[in-house]
């Protein structure tokens, strides 16, 4: 029963949630909404486990003075103090003027923005590698990229304004984005959507059960 019971619950809840997509009646939609909201409670318990894991791993590194322990110490201090401040401030801890809000706005947000801004440099280096023409496919990719890039800036419009409209760069880039790009994207999306359904069905029917761990 150790494995069968969770599988039965998964199957029952999974099929019920599929049913709720087609049956809007309150006898189905109200319990379905309740089930979805109940996930928040489960997640709240999960955070306790996750927080304990983060604390244990990093405190252990600090205690053993493993390489990089100083960073772990900063992490532990930040983790504990942020939680303490949040708990002390209680409900509305993220309101304006609260210390938790200050931590978020003045510390976390700038650091996250710094990480995100690095993306520009990574894109440049990745694009440099991607556009090295070594094969026919890479050549096609580079040509398409060049048309799209130039077609989206004023200079592309200016440079080809003397050509017939159908040959101007803005028209060509629009065609590339609307026709071949969209066709390929939709093909991937349809395949992925079916993959989602197949995976969901496998989990619901208990065919995919590795997530339950333990012995077979």
């Amino acid at each position: 029963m150790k494995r069968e019971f969770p599988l039965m619950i998964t199957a029952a809840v999974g099929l019920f949630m599929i049913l709720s997509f087609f049956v809007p009646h309150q006898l189905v939609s109200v319990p379905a909404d309740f089930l979805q909201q109940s996930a928040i409670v489960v997640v709240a318990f999960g955070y306790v486990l996750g927080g304990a894991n983060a604390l244990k791993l990093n405190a252990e590194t600090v205690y053993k003075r493993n390489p990089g322990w100083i960073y772990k110490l900063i992490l532990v201090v930040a983790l504990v103090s942020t939680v303490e401040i949040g708990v002390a401030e209680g409900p509305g801890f993220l309101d304006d003027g609260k210390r938790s809000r200050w931590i978020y706005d003045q510390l976390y947000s700038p650091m996250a923005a710094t990480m995100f801004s690095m993306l520009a440099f990574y894109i440049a280096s990745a694009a440099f590698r991607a556009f090295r023409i070594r094969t026919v496919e890479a050549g096609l990719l580079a040509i398409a990229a060049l048309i799209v890039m130039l077609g989206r800036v004023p200079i592309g419009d200016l440079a080809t304004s003397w050509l017939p409209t159908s040959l101007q760069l803005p028209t060509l880039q629009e065609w590339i984005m609307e026709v071949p790009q969209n066709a390929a994207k939709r093909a991937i999306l349809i395949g992925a959507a079916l993959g989602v359904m197949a995976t969901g069905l496998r989990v619901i029917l208990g065919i995919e059960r590795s997530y339950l761990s333990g012995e077979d």
Partner: protein
Amino acid sequence: MAVQVSWTKEVPVPQTGPRLGVRLAPFAMLVVLASAHPVLAQGTAAPDTVLADSAAATGDLVPAPPRPPSGLTVKDVTNDAGRALDLTWKRSPDDEPGQTLVTQYRLERAPTPGGPWSVVDSASAGSEGRADQSVERNTEYFYRVTAVGPGGVTPALSVTGPVRATSQWINQTRWSVLILTVLFFGFVLFFISQAQSGKVPFVRRIPGIDAIEEAIGRATEMGRPVLYVPGILDIDEIQTVAGLVILESVARLTAKYETPIVVPVTYPIPFTIAEEMVKSGYLHAGRPEGYDPNSVRFVSPEQFAYTAAVGGIMLRDRPAAHIFMGAFYAESLLLAETGFETGAIQVAGTANVHQLPFFVVACDYTLIGEELYAASAYLSKEPKLVGALKGADFMKITILFLVLIGCILETAHIHVLTNLLQTQ
């Protein structure tokens, strides 16, 4: 003698003819001028003119309230659980583009035609409809709509009701989805039963999945760990489920090769499942004692905090193999490029179309879209899972035919299929 002018918001507005304020505006101007002129003021009066006391004091004109909207109809929203009513009306004749006589429409509701009325919502000028989503199922309501402007509020023309929101048993717009879902499930179950009876379908080679073992082997040779990233979303994202299922197979391999594995996770529920997966992998590989409880680490649900932590692991621990399987967003390139700089062999898989180009550029192998979901079947070779893959392939053929037929019909201006497949 100065002309005494008065104004009150409750003055009813004539329902027909030109707007009172517009009609009397020149006349009111004369009245104001006359009030300042001792001769003209004698005997001059404009009884219909409405001006605010304060406006009178400053000499400003205040427009009359706008004429009310008309034709209010209220209908139950179909295909729902009785949670909304649809209100539609005809705009006030004073609500024209470029005019500012109407600022908004106020929707009022009452349990009886006589009230008490309460404002349930408002809509900006120019609107002709709104859904009231604050109704109680199977309760009768009456509605009225008023126009609000700088000149005040006009009483509603009429009261509409009673109406009630009811729930339906079947969403009539989702029949096509239901049929296709049943068909898909039928295909999957049929091919699963076929596979169980010994007819295991052929699965084409997926180089990206084959490369996982190669990458783990390389990490083993170099004596370095394997880094496995199961995406950055929670368990309600099916890509995360797929990523965690593949993790079990990867953990089996790392257990077999006695190579450490590091799994940083974003959310707590995937964290607990990832722990189970790695444990299960070691158990199935016959090396439960090799499982390191510190191999699965909860990091942070914050996207860039997580990215920074994983980047740190890449640069400090120098894993020889990076495996990214799941849902990724802006961090995909940050992770993959950092990994590329460390010289690790990288295998990625995601169904997020916008992140695929980044992985293709920065990783050695990439699983595209559905390949991510096929990975667990491919790795385990379990007949039932492989059968499910075949079912999905048949559904793809069905959709391909539908798309082709749809293209032909639409070209011939026949919209039957398009209308049939439209959903809400």
